[in-house]
């Protein structure tokens, strides 16, 4: 009996080892496309880094319509790709189906939870990162009014807004926070013209810092801030370099690191299904401080930011998550 168990254990290690050897990652992007300067592009950077380091071949697919999402995921799994990364909440429905059909393939989905035994759901504590940039916005604001421009009006973006508002109020309880959503469809992720208009209307009402969590729409928001000599805060990737002197900071969501780590974990056998929540403590979200904005952030502000960050990680400051109860109390 003992011997059989041993043999089984050995066999398992061997099979795991074999599995670990042939990692051939695949990515199915969101309909926004691979080169969107934001979310999808961050994922592609992460997998590219893995490919460059290991020489592994990464398969990629950009669906052109909704039925191609499912087709793409199934195709990748059928061809033996492992892991298969689904980018964006839109793929949850298709992934649920495909993950059931291919129980031996490792799947990962970013920004959404799919409850299957072979799916790793990667979600971020955007409220923590937004809290930090909200705090910095309040410190930098002279008018006591700050703005927020969201992309598509969904729970995820309200989560950014809610964290931002809490952060701003933490530093200055009397602060006024304006917020606008660009639209209620995916087109809202790519409407820089409207983003710029919304930002301008917030500046007209007295805001002097604006945070855009709006994908490609943000480009218009940053331009408006630059034109009017106000501050803007970037999102997802570190966008500080876009307009040095205007970009106060960026709320960085390490989608690239998450994608990279997923592949790496499958490769070394430490991959686990389930929900993986990445917050400040895990370096999943952060505020960007680099050569482009170090002149805007004084030593005093930096020190305050570091202490707030420590307090969030240690749990001394509790940041409310909008999506826990669909409300920003």
């Amino acid at each position, binding site marked *: 009996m003992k011997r059989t168990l041993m043999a089984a254990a050995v066999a398992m290690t061997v099979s795991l080892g074999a599995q670990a050897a042939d990692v051939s990652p695949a990515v199915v992007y969101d309909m926004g496309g691979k080169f969107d300067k934001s979310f999808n592009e961050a994922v592609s950077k992460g997998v590219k880094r893995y490919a460059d380091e290991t020489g592994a071949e990464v398969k990629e697919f*950009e669906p052109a319509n909704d*039925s191609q999402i499912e087709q793409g995921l199934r195709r990748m799994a059928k061809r033996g790709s492992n892991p298969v990364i689904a980018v964006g909440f839109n793929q949850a*429905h298709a992934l649920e189906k495909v993950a059931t059909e291919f129980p031996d393939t490792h799947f990962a989905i970013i920004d959404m939870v799919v409850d299957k035994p072979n799916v790793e759901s990667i979600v971020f504590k955007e409220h923590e990162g937004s809290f930090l940039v909200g705090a910095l916005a309040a410190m930098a604001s002279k008018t006591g009014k700050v703005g927020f421009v969201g992309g598509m009006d969904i729970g995820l973006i309200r989560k950014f807004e809610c964290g931002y508002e809490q952060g701003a109020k933490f530093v200055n309880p009397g602060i006024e926070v304006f917020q606008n959503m660009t639209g*209620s*469809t995916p087109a809202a992720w790519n409407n820089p013209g409207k983003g710029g208009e919304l930002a301008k209307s917030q500046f007209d009402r007295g805001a002097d810092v604006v945070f855009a969590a709006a994908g490609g729409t943000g480009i218009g928001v940053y331009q408006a801030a630059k034109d009017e000599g106000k501050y803007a805060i970037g999102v997802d990737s570190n966008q500080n370099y876009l307009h040095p002197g205007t970009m106060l900071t960026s709320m960085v969501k390490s989608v690239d690191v998450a994608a990279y780590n997923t592949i790496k974990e499958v490769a070394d056998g430490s991959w686990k299904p389930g929900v993986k929540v990445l917050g400040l403590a895990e370096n999943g979200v952060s505020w960007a401080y680099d050569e482009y904005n170090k002149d805007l952030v004084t030593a005093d502000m930096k020190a305050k930011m570091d202490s707030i960050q420590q307090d969030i990680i240690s749990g001394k400051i509790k940041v409310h998550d909008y999506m826990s109860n669909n409300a920003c109390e």
Partner: protein
Amino acid sequence: MSQPAGALPGWANKALLPALNIISAFLVTGIVFLMIGESPIEAAKIMLYGAFGYQEGFGYTLYYTTNFIFTGLAVAVAFHAGLFNIGGEGQAYIGGLGAGLACLALDAYLPAWILIPLAVVASALFGAAWAFLPGYLQARRGSHVVITTIMFNFLASSLMVYLLSHVLKDPGQMSSSSREFAEVAWLPFIHNMLAGMGISFDESPLNVSFFLALVCCVLVWLLIWRTRWGYELRTVGSNSTAAVYAGIKPAKVIIWVMCLSGALAGLVGVNEILGVQHRLLLDFSAGYGFVGIAVALMGRNHPVGIVLASLLFGALYQGGAELAFDMPNITRDMVVMIQGLIILFCGALEFMYRPLLVRLLSSKAA
């Protein structure tokens, strides 16, 4: 339709000319492939294999074909009456809304054999209603149907956005789509039906609405060439003044033809919503309505031609997706370019080879 002088035998006009046009389009595509450093032969192999070479791919090809048959027929019916219906996209979108509303409201109460026919009728009715207004405005007010149908596409899109983000949205999720219908409202997939008969076929979105599309082809053929209504329709299309003289009321014909055209486009909703997605979502019409115009043009507005042209475009869609899988240099935008070239050669440059052919064939005869 005005045609250049010189007569061509029927087979040359119906088969040789379109074939030459398609070959030219593929030749130009091949040159572009060479320019970006990919082998055109290899690409053609991948596309052909992807579209026809294995069961799942073939299923996808026929699934796209189904949509194109519906929208192609819609354009063709209107075209025979001299109307250019550009609104297939919006009519398909709203047709899907009809099917979706029927399922969302009734899927808890009705058995499949009542619910599905009801939803099919609802999608045709909604599509027809969406085309009725442009038809009415054309017939009674003289507003040109090209302009109004284009505008109705935008209206359809805005209406669906509003409904799906505010009224029908499933609160439990982030994407703008309705809840999934209960399983009674799902059209049977072909692979499930074949499995029931003991034949194994790989999973694909192909469902019974493919047969509905073929039935529509037969019905449209019967209507246009074998009924009194079809005669009226063609008379109005070729000369509406003469039609009046023959006792036909063009205004009435225009309205019912537009409704019929809209109903056919609306049936895309049956394939997409009842057949594949099983929920209402944004942009499921994905341009099928516009491709339908090219399909009708290429198919010479005849049901047989439309089936063949739909198959070609279905194969392009599926084979194109396959190309994007297998050749990392080929993005989805390249696939759009191939489709564009085919539309350019078969639509805009349709008669490019005609004078040449006329000369060749007549000299041979002489």
